[in-house]
């Protein structure tokens, strides 16, 4: 125990010696969270569209008004002579709407008519949103136009948990998890591999300190740093995303602790097995950040990941923490909904810890 504390103290002294790293360590997670939080979202609005109205009648203009009224689209002007497709080619618009010449006449004659929606399908998700909206705009137009019978079924739509469609509610709690996925393990991995690279590890080897003491000493030191990052990041996330605890926060607090521990253990494991700082950074960056970013269900639903790849996400701690974080800030399901998260995180931590201990176990040079 004394050796663990000695190790921790030394790590913290070294850490605080490098002012730049301290600032980076505390500020970068916040910057990263802010950046991801404000830029990564799939919820589009104000998509530019061009409208080519060959009819130019009050009815056709009413159709155009319906488009304008939707929040999804924003009409941008198109030169009369230009082909609507060219607007898509040039990225001027995401969709082009062509209203045929006898639009009003046909409708008055009681003949159904078609409005052409040319949609840029490059971004499949956005295209899907546009397709739904195209259908809804025509329906709305028809209802106005017919103004006759009430619809047989009136579906009252209620959006739960996040009625404003505010993507912050979805992204915010998850970004909080992702922002913390990178730096704690990175710092501890660097601290471990630096000893290997600068050969100070020899001094540790001969000091007859046990592998677990050495490992836990480092982990403890960087847990303290990680908790500091957690507090700062949380303090930023709450006002930035406008979120607050919905219900019992204990499962969140316990999971937070375990999540940080799990990440630090991973970093320690990476640093223990890679005695080269640059390579260690690479490994941590790829595994912690990329996987947390992609496979945690943070923007892209886990259910969409093909099953041969989905098992990998089961090993990503951020995936579980995203769950618990969304629950506490948005749904408020508490222990019954998320009891498994602390269990899995604890299990993963122990696995990483064990792997790290295995590679250090002998406390000797490999040759």
């Amino acid at each position, binding site marked *: 125990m004394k050796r663990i504390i000695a190790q921790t103290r030394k790590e913290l002294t070294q850490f605080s010696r490098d002012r730049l790293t301290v600032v980076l360590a505390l500020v970068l997670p916040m910057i*990263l969270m802010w950046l991801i939080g404000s*830029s990564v979202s799939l919820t589009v609005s104000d998509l530019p569209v061009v409208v080519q109205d060959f009819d130019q009648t009050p009815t056709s203009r009413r159709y155009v008004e319906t488009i304008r009224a939707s929040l999804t689209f924003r009409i941008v002007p198109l030169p009369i002579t230009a082909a609507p497709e060219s607007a898509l080619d040039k990225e001027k618009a995401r969709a082009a709407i062509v209203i045929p010449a006898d639009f009003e006449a046909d409708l008055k004659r009681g003949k159904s008519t078609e409005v052409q929606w040319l949609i840029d399908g490059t971004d499949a998700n956005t295209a899907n949103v546009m397709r739904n909206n195209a259908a809804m705009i025509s329906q709305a137009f028809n209802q106005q136009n017919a103004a006759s019978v009430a619809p047989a*079924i009136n579906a009252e739509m209620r959006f739960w948990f996040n009625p404003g469609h505010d993507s912050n509610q979805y992204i915010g709690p998850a970004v909080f998890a992702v922002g913390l996925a990178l730096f704690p393990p990175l710092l501890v991995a660097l601290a471990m591999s630096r000893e290997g690279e600068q050969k100070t590890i020899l001094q540790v080897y001969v000091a007859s300190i046990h592998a677990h003491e050495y490992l836990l000493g480092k982990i403890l030191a960087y847990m303290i740093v990680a908790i500091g990052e957690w507090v700062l990041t949380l303090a930023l996330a709450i006002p930035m995303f406008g979120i607050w605890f919905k219900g019992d926060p204990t499962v969140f607090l316990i999971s937070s602790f375990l999540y940080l521990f799990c990440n630090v253990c991973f970093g320690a494991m990476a640093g223990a097995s890679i005695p080269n700082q640059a390579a260690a950074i690479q490994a941590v960056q790829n595994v912690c950040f990329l996987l947390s970013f992609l496979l945690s269900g943070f923007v892209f639903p886990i259910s969409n990941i093909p099953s041969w790849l989905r098992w990998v996400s089961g090993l990503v701690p951020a995936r579980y923490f995203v769950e618990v974080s969304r629950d506490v800030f948005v749904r408020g399901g508490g222990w019954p909904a998320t009891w498994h998260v602390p269990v899995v995180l604890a299990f993963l931590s122990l696995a990483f810890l064990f792997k790290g201990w295995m590679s250090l176990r002998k406390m000797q040079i490999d040759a």
Partner: protein
Amino acid sequence: MSDRFFNWRFWPLFFKELNELRRNRRLIGMMLLPPTLNLVLLGFAMNPEVTDLRLGIVDESRSAESRELISAFAESKSFVPAAYYSSVEELTRALSGGELEAGLVVPSDFAKKRARHESAEVQLLVDSVNSNTGSIAGGYAARVVGALNEKISLNRTSVQPARAESRVSLFYNAGLQNSWFIVTGMIGMLLVMLGSLVASASMVKEKEVGTVEQLLMTPAGSAEIILAKMAPIFLLLSVDIGLSTLVGNFVFGVPLRGSFTLLYFSGMLCVLSGIGIGTIIATFTRSQQQAQLMSFFVNPPLSMLSGATTPIEAMPQWMQPLTNLNPVKHFAVLARGVMLKGVGLEVLYPNFLALVVFTIILVGVSAWRFRKQLN
């Protein structure tokens, strides 16, 4: 003439760099694996598609009419009836537990109102924690109900009312393959990030180990040194452009409808910009560790603010113009233009010019910084 060419100091410097690169298996791996592995991984994983939404049902009407509505939902590909609940409370509990994405509540007077030709109310509860999924699910549900309404009114009145229909044609990506979007965006991102990573590593290493002193004492000029450092990275990463195009095509069927030459040249400009960024980072740092930490300042904004994986329209208004300062964005537009849209320089020239300008600025600044440091 040829003698002077072969005796040029550039060659020994170039081969030295090439040999060092060759020895550094980790770096080579870093340069060749990500384009293939990352592209495949990302193409599969980054998929926001919304299908098979789990629908919980509370049917208080238990009538033929209510069953007609439920089967209309079941027939659509978007919803899968997951379970029936006896009360709204049970349904909402399941919704907050994350067992369902949507819930349908049919009240007991549904059949009665339908019989009286009144508008019958139903409730649709949509979990919109994920606002994207939520709004798409809402759109699907509205379409299902709308289609049913039409059918009902058709049956009721023999005369078909005149209607305006939206005939949607999907351009460029008719199958709405999300991977096409991701792959075309990721190529540029990988090229720039790898370029900067490898360049900063190779530049800073010499400083860190101390061999830079020895190098500076040789008669080689700074232009020769920086050229020789950039050339092998440039060559190797140029291979990646072709490689990732191939992977995109074989794994995800991403088409190549336009000119490969244009794509390749744009890719090379991307690589050069990346190398420029890496070199600039290297001139500000003393060790590889610092260089890599520094790249955490540069790379996330480059990749996040590019529209490579998420639509630019989803960013806050004020942020959208900033993406124009990002070479990754311009390459994404170029790649999508060439590969998916099949358009050429006549349309894409603004983005191509932007890339050229970035490359000139970045390489120029890096050469200037490097030179300044050498002297």
